[in-house]
């Protein structure tokens, strides 16, 4: 198992890197306590992975996703997607480990 990323999410991330003028930066995802359903996802674009992060690369290294080891316990098998709909525009976590998610999709329980 690992972390996967959809074509739409790759496209969005590459666009953001271009707007930020930070072509080498990586997408860092994770989980922390809080949110309406117990645990919530977080997402950030950072210069480089932390020392002990699990690192996944896609598109011949053009896209790097880093996850800290603690969050990885909750995210193993997750596909990161990007959705643009009338209701919401943003990155979405499709997490097979999530038991129940809250309606806003930002938090979940195992």
């Amino acid at each position, binding site marked *: 198992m690992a972390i996967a990323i959809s074509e739409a999410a790759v496209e969005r991330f590459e666009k*953001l890197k*271009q*707007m*930020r*003028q*930070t072509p080498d*930066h990586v997408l860092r995802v994770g989980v*922390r*306590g809080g949110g309406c359903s117990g645990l919530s996802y977080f*997402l*950030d*674009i*950072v*210069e*480089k992975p932390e020392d*002990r992060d699990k690192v996944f690369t896609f598109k011949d290294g053009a896209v790097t996703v880093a996850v*800290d*080891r*603690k969050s990885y*316990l909750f995210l193993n098998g997750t596909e990161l997607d990007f959705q643009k709909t009338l209701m919401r525009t943003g*990155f979405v976590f499709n997490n097979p480990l999530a038991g129940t998610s809250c309606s806003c999709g930002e938090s979940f329980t*195992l």
Partner: protein
Amino acid sequence: MANIGIDLGTTNSLVAVVMGGRARCLLDDEGSALTPSAVQFVEGTDTPRIGLEALESAAENAQATLTSFKRFMGRNMTEARAVAGDLPYQLAEADGDKVVRFDVGADPRGEGRREVTPVEASAWVLRMLYMRAADCLLATPGGVVITVPAYFDDAQRQATRDAGKLAGMNVLRLLNEPTAAAIAYGLQEKKQGVFAVYDLGGGTFDISILELTDGVFQVLSTAGDTRLGGDDFDRELVEELGLGSTSGGDLRSALDRAIAIKHALTSSDQAEGVTRGRFEQRIRPLVERTLASCKQALKDAELEVGDVDGVVLVGGSTRVPLVRQMVGELFEAEPYCDLDPDQVVALGAAMQADILSGQSELADDMLLMDVVPLSLGIETMGGVVERLIWRCTPIPCEASETFTTHVDGQTAVDLHVVQGERELSKDNRSLARFKLKGLPDMPAGLPRVKVSFTVDADGILQVSATEQYTKTHAEIDVQPSYGLDDAQVEQMLEDAIDNAETDVDERLLIEARVEAEQIVATVKKALKNDGELLAAGEREAIEGVMVKLEAAMGGRDRKPVQDLSKELDEVTAPFAQRRIERDLKAALEGQDALAVSKALERTVGTSEAR
């Protein structure tokens, strides 16, 4: 939450952020850092076109397209009329002492005209840049530093702040543009010196003399002209092209042509029949006016040209070769021009915003002083930590969360305040313990105890607990950083990462056990009180699952605990349903609203405790 810097310019505006230790401008979809400070109001809709989109259709919608409106910030109608003669758009009808309004066409919501203030127009531009930053940061920006010309008076500064507020932003500070430019060049690292900042933008000219002492800038003097800039160069070119008498849409087209010629003349000697020599002859008097201001600023600061250690060039108009040459000659120095002169101010604003965040990537040494070094939390059932304040939160800060009791009739709670990143309180640093007594006698899960953490500017943590019905209150002060050095903080962070997997497993096991305990307690109570509602064989079935669950709770594997808890929940569901129906029926027969709610509280409340 990262802070951002915005250069709200007369002609163009920019947004920049420090990312990965370096300030960078955020680009639009076209890959440009410059967003034209232009807003076009479209008939029939509230939402205007902003930036390039507004400018592209400006020629055919001249009256509805506002540009260079920064000149009117904080001005009244009388002041505005004095400079409004050659505008491609119109001022509204209003008394002279009223705030400037532009008439941009029919009101989409009513019969009359739509009138827009410079503050509103600025807010639309700010909002667009703010949204771009939110996209790029994947989060709402924290605070914003907006730059203003050093020349701006109080009314103009206030108008700029108002525009920020109208755009829904938290304006941290207004920063003088020359100071921002000096910060962008890192001149503060020189510690001492005198610097001139020559800023020739689209619509304003500023010369500022800054004195640097121990890394802090002080403005010695400023001079300039809020109505002189690259726009005037464009007008000179319009005259040169023989189009000086045009107005409205034609004037707009003429200006667009002039701008193209001006840009071309930066690198070539001739464009559209206009030679660089002719252009320079036209603009020389304007540049000389700026140099006169420079001399005035030096005089005001009681300095000679030789006292100035360097001159920084800011603003797109400093790309004009004649400007560079004449400024260099005046200050007898090669000007600082390595950074893009259009971006310098925004980059400096971003760096200032970053420093104000307290989590600066640029100002490393501030880090442990201004943020919470390790998370602060409270121990909950089973020894699990509930964090209220996360590490690296800037101080001062506060957070609160509501807790409840675990046992029926519990009249006191022990509060254990801990610090660290581990999941179990025994692995974290214990800061304090105190007791909240005198809770009302209620079933488990009903009292509401609000626990608040407040860390003041000195890093002192105050923890208070208040029961919401009786207002029973207790509190304690602690100094979390007392006796902790950097190495220990580092060690605690490493431990948290090394033990992540076992910690999380342990936490989940404890949480599963706590939940199971609660279900078992609730079920036992129900069996005892409402045994007559059980169907034949139901008690045996329930007790059978309960025995298995209690055995699993003694083990180290959370899966059977979770599964059996669920099973117990399912096997007791019909029984619980009958209890709710019985209580409701009894209450409804009595027609007593209080009894109904009490009955619901009793049956629902007790099974819902977390």
